[in-house]
């Protein structure tokens, strides 16, 4: 250990911050090794702790996934972005939505006439796949950790389902103009999609979410099958059924709300 210590004048200039950078770094290095000189440097404990906390906050921060970064760039609050992007299945659900809509767009460009029925039948159940993968013991590897928190259950399901629905609806909405149909018909999937999502959430109190999604998808296929059976598959997208889908969406959302807050 060196017997040399920082002279008073040098220390004063160091404390004033007027030393040349190279000299200041030399003093820093010496202070790191010499307890006597450190003791001679006055310091404010609170200031040091606050500085360390700031430094720690810079060094120890969350790692952001691509989907989380995209959400935050899109203006989603950081805590919400993390909730939505945490489970791998949610990201896959979103990816599946994008792939499905891209597939629809490609098909629409190539086989326009044959494509419309497929799109109208599949688009309403597209968000269900995402909702099924949004929350639950089978799809969330950390479900047991999550389940004991205040956000778990219907709150988390609703948050994620809304996000899935929003993405699916926006993407399907972007694909709609590609369809060879009047705007009204091209958007005829929207109310059935909302009703199906609300139905899935409403039933989720009694059934696991994936089963609820399958059940609702089955009901939708039965409705579409009815249209096919009566010889006019477009009938299930007509004005009267659309009112029915709208009313069903409102009632089922209300039902989910009641169950969630009971």
């Amino acid at each position, binding site marked *: 250990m060196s017997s040399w210590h920082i002279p008073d004048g040098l220390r004063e200039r160091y404390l004033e911050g007027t030393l040349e950078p190279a000299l200041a770094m030399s003093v820093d290095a010496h202070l790191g090794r010499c307890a006597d000189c450190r003791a001679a440097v006055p310091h404010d404990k609170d200031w040091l702790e606050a500085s360390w906390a700031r430094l720690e906050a810079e060094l120890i*921060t969350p790692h952001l*996934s691509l989907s989380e970064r995209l959400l935050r760039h899109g203006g989603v609050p950081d805590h919400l972005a993390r909730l939505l992007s945490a489970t791998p299945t949610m990201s896959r659900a979103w990816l599946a939505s994008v792939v499905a809509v891209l597939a629809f767009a490609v098909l629409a460009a190539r086989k326009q006439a044959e494509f419309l029925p497929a799109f109208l039948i599949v688009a309403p159940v597209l968000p269900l796949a995402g909702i099924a993968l949004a929350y639950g013991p089978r799809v969330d590897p950390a479900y047991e950790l999550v389940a*004991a928190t*205040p956000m778990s259950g219907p709150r988390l399901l609703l948050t994620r389902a809304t996000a899935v629905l929003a993405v699916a609806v926006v993407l399907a909405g972007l694909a709609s103009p590609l369809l060879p149909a009047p705007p009204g018909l091209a958007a005829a999937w929207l109310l059935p999609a909302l009703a199906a999502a609300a139905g899935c959430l409403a039933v989720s109190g009694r059934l696991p979410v994936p089963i609820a999604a399958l059940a609702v998808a089955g009901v939708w296929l039965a409705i579409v099958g009815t249209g096919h059976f009566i010889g006019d598959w477009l009938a299930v997208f007509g004005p009267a059924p659309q009112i029915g889908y709208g009313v069903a969406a409102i009632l089922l959302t209300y039902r989910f709300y009641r169950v969630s807050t009971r």
Partner: protein
Amino acid sequence: MIQIKQLTKTYGAKRALDGLDLTLGTGVTGLLGPNGAGKTTLLRCLATTLAPNGGSVDAFGLDPADRVQRTALRRRLGYLPQNPGSYPHFTAFDLVDYVAILKELTDRKHRHAEVRRVLAEVDLTDQAGTKVRKLSGGMRQRLALAQALLGEPDLLILDEPTVGLDPEQRMTFRALVSRLGESRIVVLSTHQTEDVAALCERVVVMRDGRAIFDGTPGELAAVADGRVWLSDAPPATSELFWRTADGRYRTLGARPPAADTVAPGVEDGYLMLLGEAA
């Protein structure tokens, strides 16, 4: 204060909890029992992740059967499950941050400070940026414990918390849990009788969904008073015995010939109790 009355949980024909009555107060309570005794089921019911079939739980005046009160209770508890699970792509910081969000800590600055605090509590500050999949088993267990400490919960539920910890980490864990138990209710399950002896003021031994013993570790040890022996030869009878490190035979039950009596430990009392209950 937590009052459990006639709690029942069945899985098909199996009664995991069979009309359990228990009261839990401030301090560390250890649950001991063989596999299938109902420890994890009880802890899951307390943690509100599992609904019982019958009976009631009253925790701080809150009824977990009611959705609103259940949410209020979840704000006051920390839970380390037996199989916590994780997201391998997360870092240690990410995972605890995620649970902090689920615990409604939405203010980023406050939340991150809390995450750093609990990581420091379990000595994982240096691993904050490490991916969970790269952490050792002991580190993952400490990470799971860290998330349970978020928000300084009034009720801490720890299911097999010392699994995967090395002896030094176990000592640190005991010191941490003892300190936490000074001001809150801590209930933990374990197979390690030495953990119970070292840190629990109270021990509940469970078997077949019921509490067959409720007392201090000293009282549990006393169950085997006068029934623990050391001898140079193995006992001729079918008593429970094992060979010790110094080559003698430790027997529980009737005195073998030429055996010396030994002061019983918690494990002796526990084994004796299970033997009597069988």
